[in-house]
């Protein structure tokens, strides 16, 4: 009997602890999840003691899938949900609700030693589709272009294809990286490298951001939509968010949250 009482007490203690320490599961975009959301979570936790976060940043596709299959309360995404995903969600009774949490400009980066000063949209399309394979063809000083892209589960991968490549396929020899930081790192090491990263990742060493049609990504050009590769980023929820997910979403779009958005390098909601 004593053993039974002890086990019951332990179980009650465990349940009570779980109830007190609410956990928010967030999955999805590496662009949002590598830097921004962890910092937002830290700040949020300081205001909501006992809250824990489980953040997995493995690409927007995984975030949207997590909302559809109910394994996360918030799905981070740097792209809009595709019609097929929305259809899949509807079939399961899931209502994909997007909330804009920040803006981003996908910056085209090259090695800082590259002589290229600017590119046109057409040249960017030619480079990333493999139509142009040498820097000399776009005004550079020569050398075989090495392309670094995100992997296929990335929202940035899809967005860049849509915004910059007329939905054409990437060049066959392009190398797929797991995250923005890896792309920045590889381009920083390779004098002939070219890639793209979110605005928050442009401060890495050894790289420079190239103006597109004379426009650099910035808060102003993203807000004004004059930068061609500007985009909103989202939290996806199943219908209107509730509970802890709502509190965190509200915090993200609050003045305090948007201040962090700006500090990390994203463009806040105007």
């Amino acid at each position, binding site marked *: 009997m004593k053993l039974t009482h002890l086990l019951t007490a332990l179980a009650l203690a465990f349940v009570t602890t779980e109830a007190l320490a609410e956990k928010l599961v967030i999955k999805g975009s590496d662009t949002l999840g590598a830097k921004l959301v962890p910092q937002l979570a830290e700040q949020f936790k300081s205001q909501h003691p006992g809250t824990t976060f489980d953040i997995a940043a493995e690409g927007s596709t995984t975030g949207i899938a997590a909302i559809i299959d109910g394994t996360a309360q918030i799905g981070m995404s740097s792209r*809009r949900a595709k019609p097929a995903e929305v259809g899949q969600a509807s079939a399961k009774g899931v209502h994909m*609700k997007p909330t804009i949490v920040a803006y981003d400009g996908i910056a085209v980066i090259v090695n800082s030693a590259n002589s290229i000063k600017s590119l046109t949209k057409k040249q960017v399309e030619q480079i990333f589709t493999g139509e142009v394979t040498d820097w000399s063809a776009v005004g550079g000083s020569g050398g075989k272009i090495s392309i670094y892209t995100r992997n296929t589960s990335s929202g940035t991968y899809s967005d860049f294809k849509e915004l910059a490549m007329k939905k054409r396929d990437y060049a066959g020899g392009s190398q797929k990286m797991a995250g923005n930081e890896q792309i920045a790192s590889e381009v920083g090491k390779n004098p002939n490298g070219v890639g793209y990263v979110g605005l928050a990742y442009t401060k890495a060493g050894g790289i420079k951001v190239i103006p597109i049609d004379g426009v650099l990504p910035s808060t102003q050009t993203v807000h004004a939509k004059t930068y061609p590769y500007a985009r909103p980023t989202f939290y996806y929820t199943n219908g209107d968010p509730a509970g802890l997910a709502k509190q965190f979403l509200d915090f993200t779009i609050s003045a305090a949250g948007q201040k962090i958005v700006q500090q990390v390098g994203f463009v806040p909601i105007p």
Partner: protein
Amino acid sequence: MLRNYFVLIAIGASLAAGSITARAQDAGALLDLLVKKKLITDQEAEEVRGELTRDAATTAAGKWKISAPVTEVELYGDMRVRYEGRQGTTAGVLPGTPGPDDTLKRSRERYRLRLGLRGTLADDWFFGMRFETSTNPRSTNVTFGDDAGPFGKTSDTLGVGQAYLGYSGFRDVRLTVGKMPNPLVTTLMVWDADINPEGMAEQWKHSYNFSFGGGTTTAAAETYGKDSKSTAAVVEAEPFKVKLDLFVNLAQFVYDDANPENPLGPRTVGGGKLVPNSDNWLLAWQVGARLNFPKNIYFQVAPVLYTYTGNGDSFNTFFVGGQQGLTNTASMATNQVGTNSLMVLEVPAEFGFKIGEIPVRIFGDFAVNLDADDRAIAAGHPEAQNERYAWQLGAGIGQLKTKGDMQLQAFWQHTEQYSLDPNLVDSDFFDSRVNIEGVVVQAGYALSDAVIFNLSYGYGRRSNRSLGTGGVGDIAINPLDKYQIFQADLNVKF
């Protein structure tokens, strides 16, 4: 906020007027514009976009996924049910069986189905494919009850009728390769409409616009009304405008593939001669012009020269085309398909105009085989070296575009034994034959925009009564002395 609310209602209402697919596609640009004009926020736009995507994704159209490089795609096709009766009569004097003036009749109920997909791709490429019933190159018909059954499916198969791709990135030029719709301007006299030739085609077309006269001004007479004097209007004379379309169609069709090109051991011998070990190509060179005058008047002429490389392993023996004086079986057993000594010049032409709102066209075709003398000698008929001409002349009135439309058409056709390639000529109205002449009358009525009812009748008779009627048709008689066909069709197009 109130203004935003009304804007969202307005978006919903305006988009609801279009199709669900169009709504999803058009929403992006419209929403972007509203955001740009600060009528709604980005977040509101996203919510509307999400709703529209959800609506579109749950419709049948929204579930189709088409790969990104496809810029336009069209699903099209037709289905037809037909009653057909055709009959042929043997020559008056024919030794052996069957007897003279014997008649062979064939009546049947048939259907055909053609289902196609064609479209354009990024960077000026295009493609097309079509699945068709029947394996016959000159027919897509399947006869009801003609296979193991009852109600068997042995003959109800779909074959690849068309499979082609092409490039149109050079100005005025269209390049096509594959099994394609016939790229040549021609008539049923020379080409059966069901044939989809295989090979390559290069097409060029350019339009020139000319204006004659006009530009002069004329002062109209002053007129007086009840209350005032009318100001004289200045009338400007309209120039006479002519549009000239020039076109060139070149084609290289693989007529017959030699297999193998290099056999083990010595080359095959047929009829005491070496069988060619290279392919037989049909080459076509066409130049044409279409003059478009005001008031829908036009004239088109498009001469085309056909030559054959003469090789391959199926059509390389001398054409005979039946023989007067043999038994029917022996006559039919003579070569009907050889493409030797064929250098055919064809000149199809058409003149069109309108009577009121009704289109009228007068059309014709003329063909001459410049090598007919050799073809006749090889067939054992040196006396028939002038049997080299074929012509067609006809007229049509009306059109079949929308419900209630009617069309009438009639033509006379004459083909001589050595004038044309009997493997290509129309398989219906003259039973795939040459050395036959006769009349065809057709009438059509559009029961709806997509359903058309047609009646057709053809009568033919042997042209030169000392020669056979070359070609392999449905009526197993050669020489085919007289021939009749009647068809009643119900067509559905989509």
